[in-house]
């Protein structure tokens, strides 16, 4: 354009929303054009990462004069390529919203108002409350007389909203104080993933990564609504579809995912194991499995001991009193050297393969159809399409999320898919794997940094009372293998554990004092400190105070009516939040009298993602750095700048006053001020003295080059061994890498090894040595992940660098497992080595077609008065309810409901129901309804839709309805917590609650009080 645009732009102003009259009549040559300056002209561009699902799209914050003027997707980032979903697109108004909590706020006991306070004031007061509680209620010994050094009456919950650095820091904060009730969103979203994928393959994470989905020939989306909850994933799903992949969606509801899939198959919530068990039987009956893979890389050929058995829905070793199994009954048979016995012909009647066949022989099409509500035709349609990938040259991937995880059989749902993928040879290959779609802004990182009661950073067990010393801990937790073909990687655990303790206690951790092991809190063997049990204890008045960071349990924990009452029993609580939420403001919730609520509330204004520096880890384990675009607005602070000074204040009090086990607090190597870069380096780990490693000299305080350099002699420290190698002397901060270069082989599958860094050791596809044959040649040369060429591996970083197995010097590919093989038989889980169908804790049927055992014999529950369940097939609650998220709101909605542009798109709580059910109940679309369970009642607006189908189950019609759970009373007129309906029951392995299936009834509302009309 040749015209002098700028001269008339001056007149037009810079707003793009509307053109000015002054532009009219200006005759321009050669063409008439109308354009104004852009608000982003001349702005500084700062890279940030979207703070929602774990696709973790990169975005650019545009900053002018210290002010944010716009946010857009980063076009260079190979995963989102500039794209964002509705939530990501709203980042500008989200960040600049004045609705945010702007100053530290305080609510005194029995008060009916918030008061503004200074940071100094709240930090001082919080420190005092923490110290007093700790000193008064510290438990030195448990009932068994074991030293436990813990504080049970104080909790810390949260958060996946924190950066890796903040997670590492707050974990140290909690353990330093002796907190055992520590948990966060990962417990209620994907804890079952870690347990299931860990059992199946050795590591509990998404096996592949977002871009790799494009390499699939077949995509089964089940228990996930990927297009809505991980919208950018569909970029890669559709790329696969463009190349001919079949995309199948199996889910109770026809959703935006179904709309873009080749076909959708509705099934009844809570029957996934029946569905998948039928697929396992189909694979075995029709020999669809990839035999060389099954024989060489899975435990199909191992012989199980004579004690193992399965009868009437129970495995051997069950104790009905404790609702647990004696897992020793499932032990493998070992030879004289302690190596598992194998029958590679797979014919031994007690080999895993034969046991698997026997177990799933009961999963006939008719029983599966009758249980799931899926027609036999539709079952076969999925089975045939998906199992066609078991050839070695085709790839099938499974995408799942909370539709599988949030069940009393959550772990076993995912285990079923693990078995399928191992049988088909789909693990370790490009376009394969089990892609656990993690859903929170840094939930992979917060899980790795283990903001969870039962583990320490890097997936090491939480110390227990019966492991009294550092040596006992290591003895109990370090597996041994006598098989020369097994890498048994966890044999190195003591090095990682010692390095963690060195990072936590610095110079105070010595070989002599077990690196400070004594100061750590210890849990009781078999005791559960997760959400469900914490809130039950709170309800019973056993909890004094604690911390909620970026977490809204008063909306997102089952049986919310109970949970809200439970919170009233706290003496004090600290909430770090962006907005007032159902949790921060629980003291004046509808129906509560503030004058009767004793709790002292501290509300700390949190900084938004664009205001923070640090790293997050996406679902595919990529480490991503986000820089601060603008300074925290108002008086907000990053979590790090809250928890560092709070603990420093507590430490000052202990210095001065002494108290309960002051060493645990005072010996911590704790920073004076929050410095994300320093912490990120400390996560990677440092040498604590001058060391020569692999012929290279490293000085004290220099970065370790990888976890192979970590040692158990106190010469290294690392806040998380998995992240060792992420920030090295040689290459600096690798999460900043933005180099798209790839070899031809890497480019073929979109590996991007030079873009950012991923754990472990930048290996992009886990278990990739299972993608090659015994000679190191790829089963599928077209989409090779690695290949043994000229005496070395090329492609991805191999999962263990040993030469191919045929060389005689090789190791089996599943190196994190004691025996090196993928687990078809998974003897480590609480509820059985093979997944078995059990009905949800609340079910519309009163019998199980597969066995006499109706429910999981091991599922967990709590027993306070409000924890009631409907009886099986209870006529009062005949309808199945499933709950879910939606694109426009994030989880409990505490953040997105306060973004007006997002609330505009999804304004009110609705219930999706079929026209058939609506007719039966006399409900019309758009009308207010009540949904009632044995625990509570919720108002919603009826959304009558053909996308919900009545299902034929056990020969009769069963209706299922679905509701989001993102609405809450602090957004007036939008509705209130759906979780007032859901039950406090959980998976026996991880206590993830069963949000996805319970029983309710529905009727037309007489009057709406929660919803604007």
């Amino acid at each position, binding site marked *: 354009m040749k015209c002098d645009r700028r001269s008339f732009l001056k007149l037009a102003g810079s707003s793009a929303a509307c*053109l000015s009259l002054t532009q009219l009549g200006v005759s321009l040559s050669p063409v008439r*054009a109308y354009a104004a300056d*852009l608000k982003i002209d001349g702005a500084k561009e700062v890279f940030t990462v979207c703070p929602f699902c774990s696709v973790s799209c990169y975005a650019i914050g545009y900053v002018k004069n210290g002010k944010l003027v716009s946010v857009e997707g980063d076009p260079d980032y190979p995963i989102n390529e*500039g794209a964002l979903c509705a939530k990501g697109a709203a980042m500008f108004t989200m960040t600049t919203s004045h609705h945010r909590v702007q100053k530290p706020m305080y609510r005194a006991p029995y008060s009916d108002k918030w008061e503004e306070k200074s940071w100094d004031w709240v930090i001082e007061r919080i420190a005092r409350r923490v110290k007093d509680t700790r000193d008064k209620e510290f438990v030195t010994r448990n009932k068994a007389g074991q030293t436990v050094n813990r504080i049970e009456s104080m909790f810390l919950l949260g958060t996946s909203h924190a950066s890796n650095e903040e997670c590492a820091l707050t974990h140290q904060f909690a353990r330093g104080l002796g907190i055992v009730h520590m948990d966060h969103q990962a417990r209620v979203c994907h804890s079952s993933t870690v347990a299931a994928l860990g059992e199946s393959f050795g590591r509990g994470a998404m096996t592949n990564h977002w871009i790799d989905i494009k390499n699939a020939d077949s995509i089964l989306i089940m228990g996930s609504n990927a*297009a809505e909850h991980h919208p950018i994933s569909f970029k890669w799903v559709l790329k696969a579809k463009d190349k001919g992949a079949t995309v199948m969606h199996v889910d109770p509801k026809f959703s*935006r995912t179904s709309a*873009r899939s080749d076909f959708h198959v509705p099934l009844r919530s809570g029957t996934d194991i029946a569905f998948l068990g039928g697929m396992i039987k189909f694979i075995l009956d029709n020999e669809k499995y990839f035999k060389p893979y099954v024989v060489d890389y899975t435990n199909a050929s191992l012989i199980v001991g004579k004690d193992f058995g399965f009868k009437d829905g129970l495995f051997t070793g069950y104790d009905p009193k404790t609702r647990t199994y004696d897992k020793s009954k499932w032990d493998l048979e070992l030879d004289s050297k302690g190596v598992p016995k194998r029958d590679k012909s797979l014919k031994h009647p007690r080999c895993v393969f034969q046991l698997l066949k026997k177990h799933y022989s009961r999963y006939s099409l008719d029983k599966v159809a009758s249980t799931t509500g899926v027609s036999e035709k539709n079952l076969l349609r999925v089975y045939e399409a998906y199992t066609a990938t078991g050839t070695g040259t085709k790839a099938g991937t499974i995408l799942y999320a909370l539709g599988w995880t949030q069940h009393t059989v959550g772990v076993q749902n995912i285990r079923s898919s693990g078995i399928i993928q191992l049988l088909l040879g789909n693990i370790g290959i490009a376009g394969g794997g089990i892609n656990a779609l993690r859903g929170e802004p840094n939930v992979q990182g917060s899980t790795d940094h283990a903001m969870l009661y039962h583990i320490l950073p890097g997936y090491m067990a939480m110390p227990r009372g019966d492991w009294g010393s550092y040596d006992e801990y290591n003895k109990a937790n370090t597996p041994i293998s006598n098989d020369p073909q097994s890498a048994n990687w966890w044999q190195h655990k003591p090095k990682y554990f010692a390095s963690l303790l060195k990072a936590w206690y610095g110079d105070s951790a010595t070989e002599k004092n077990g690196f400070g092991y004594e100061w750590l809190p210890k849990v009781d063997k078999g005791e559960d400190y997760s959400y469900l049990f914490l809130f039950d204890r709170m309800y019973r008045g056993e909890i004094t105070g604690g911390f909620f960071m970026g977490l809204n349990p008063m909306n997102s924990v089952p049986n919310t009516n109970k949970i809200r009452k439970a919170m009233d029993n706290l003496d004090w609580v600290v909430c770090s939040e962006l907005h007032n939420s159902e949790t921060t403001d629980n003291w004046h919730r509808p129906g509560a009298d503030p004058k009767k609520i004793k709790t002292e509330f501290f509300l700390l204004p949190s900084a938004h993602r664009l205001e923070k520096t640090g790293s997050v880890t996406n679902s595919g384990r990529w480490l991503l750095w986000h820089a601060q675009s603008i300074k925290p607005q108002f008086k907000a602070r990053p979590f790090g700048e809250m928890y560092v000074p709070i603990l420093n204040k507590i430490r000052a009090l202990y210095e001065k006053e002494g108290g309960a086990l002051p060493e645990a607090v005072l010996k911590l190597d704790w920073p004076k001020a929050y410095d994300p870069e320093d912490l990120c380096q400390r996560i990677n780990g440092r040498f604590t003295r001058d060391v020569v490693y692999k012929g290279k000299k490293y000085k004290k305080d220099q970065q370790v080059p990888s976890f192979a350099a970590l040692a158990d002699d106190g010469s290294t420290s690392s806040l998380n061994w998995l992240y060792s190698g992420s920030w090295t002397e040689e290459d600096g901060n690798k999460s900043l890498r933005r180099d798209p270069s790839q070899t031809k082989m890497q480019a073929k599958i979109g590996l991007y090894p030079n873009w950012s860094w991923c754990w472990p050791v930048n290996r992009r596809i886990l278990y990739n040595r299972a993608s090659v044959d015994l000679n190191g040649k790829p089963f599928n040369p077209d989409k090779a992940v690695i290949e043994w060429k000229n005496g070395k591996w090329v492609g991805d970083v191999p999962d263990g660098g040993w030469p191919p197995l045929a060389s005689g010097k090789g190791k089996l590919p599943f190196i994190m497992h004691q025996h090196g093989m993928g687990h078809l038989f998974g003897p480590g889980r609480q509820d059985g080595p093979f997944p078995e169908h059990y009905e949800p804790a609340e079910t519309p049927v009163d019998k199980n077609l597969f066995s006499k055992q109706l429910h999981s014999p091991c599922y967990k529950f709590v027993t306070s008065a409000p924890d009631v369940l409907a009886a099986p097939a209870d006529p009062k609650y005949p309808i199945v309810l499933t709950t879910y998220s939606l694109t426009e709101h994030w989880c409990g909605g505490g953040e997105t409901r306060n973004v007006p542009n997002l609330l*505009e798109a999804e304004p009110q709580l609705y219930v999706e129901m079929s026209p058939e059910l609506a007719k039966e109940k006399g409900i019309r679309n758009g009308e207010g309804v009540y949904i009632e369970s044995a625990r509570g009642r919720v108002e919603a607006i009826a959304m009558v839709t053909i996308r919900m189908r009545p299902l034929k189950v056990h020969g009769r019609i069963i209706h299922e309805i679905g509701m989001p759970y993102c609405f809450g009373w602090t957004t007036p007129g939008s509705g209130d917590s759906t979780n007032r309906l859901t039950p406090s029951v959980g998976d026996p392995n991880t206590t993830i609650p069963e949000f996805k299936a319970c029983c309710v009834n529905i009727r037309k509302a007489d009057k*709406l009080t929660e919803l604007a009309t």
Partner: protein
Amino acid sequence: MQTGRVFPPGRKENVMPKTFLIDTSRCTACRGCQLACKEWHGLPANKTKQFGWGSHQNPQDLNPNNYKLVRFSEHLEDDVVRWNFFPDQCRHCEVAPCKETGDLYREGAIVQDEKTGAILYTDGTRKFSKEQFEEIRESCPYNIPRRNEKTGILSKCTMCNDRVHKGMLPSCVKVCPTGAMAFGERGEMLKLAEERLATVKKRFPNAMLADPDDVMVIYLLTDAPENYHSFAVAAAPQSTMDRKRFLAKLARPVTRMTEKA
């Protein structure tokens, strides 16, 4: 289907208007576009409700605060659910009836950027009376123009004309995750549209391009237009040629009019 014309007659040859291709077979209705549009243009939120509505389509219709709206429409076809998403916006007609109508009353209130082809509602549109606005709206074959009752200004998609002049993609196109939206030189987009159509037709034999010869925003539909939205294609003719149709025809080059009329 005739899509060979790369720029309308009367334009200088070196001027190549821009064109959107909206491939609904790829749209997941994530509403990134709807939100990105609001954010870029700084448009305030409307108060919306599910009560009495019961649909994911929110707000219910285009309005002065929503230049882009993803429409949701569902129906059963041989017992299979079809859920169609239609990211609705101004089509930036080659010769725009709204501009033709507006020019009758106030020339220059509605303008066309001759470089990009964008049809733009200026501040001057506030001078239209309500009745004149109704005529302008009526003239639009796609029911796009909206009026801000407070200011009187007419509003609709701007094609992010400012961005386009700077070589940037419109906000909605840039944000789109799945490639449902493409934007570029008209010739390229028409070529892409034909290619995509050929591919999509294998699965959906009735797939079509909506009014590709007449508009700068071409929709690829996999289902009958009425299964998306009443105005997915230019409003259907009544028994006799109505005003809207007439204007739409008028807007076309003479040869085409004689050919089809």
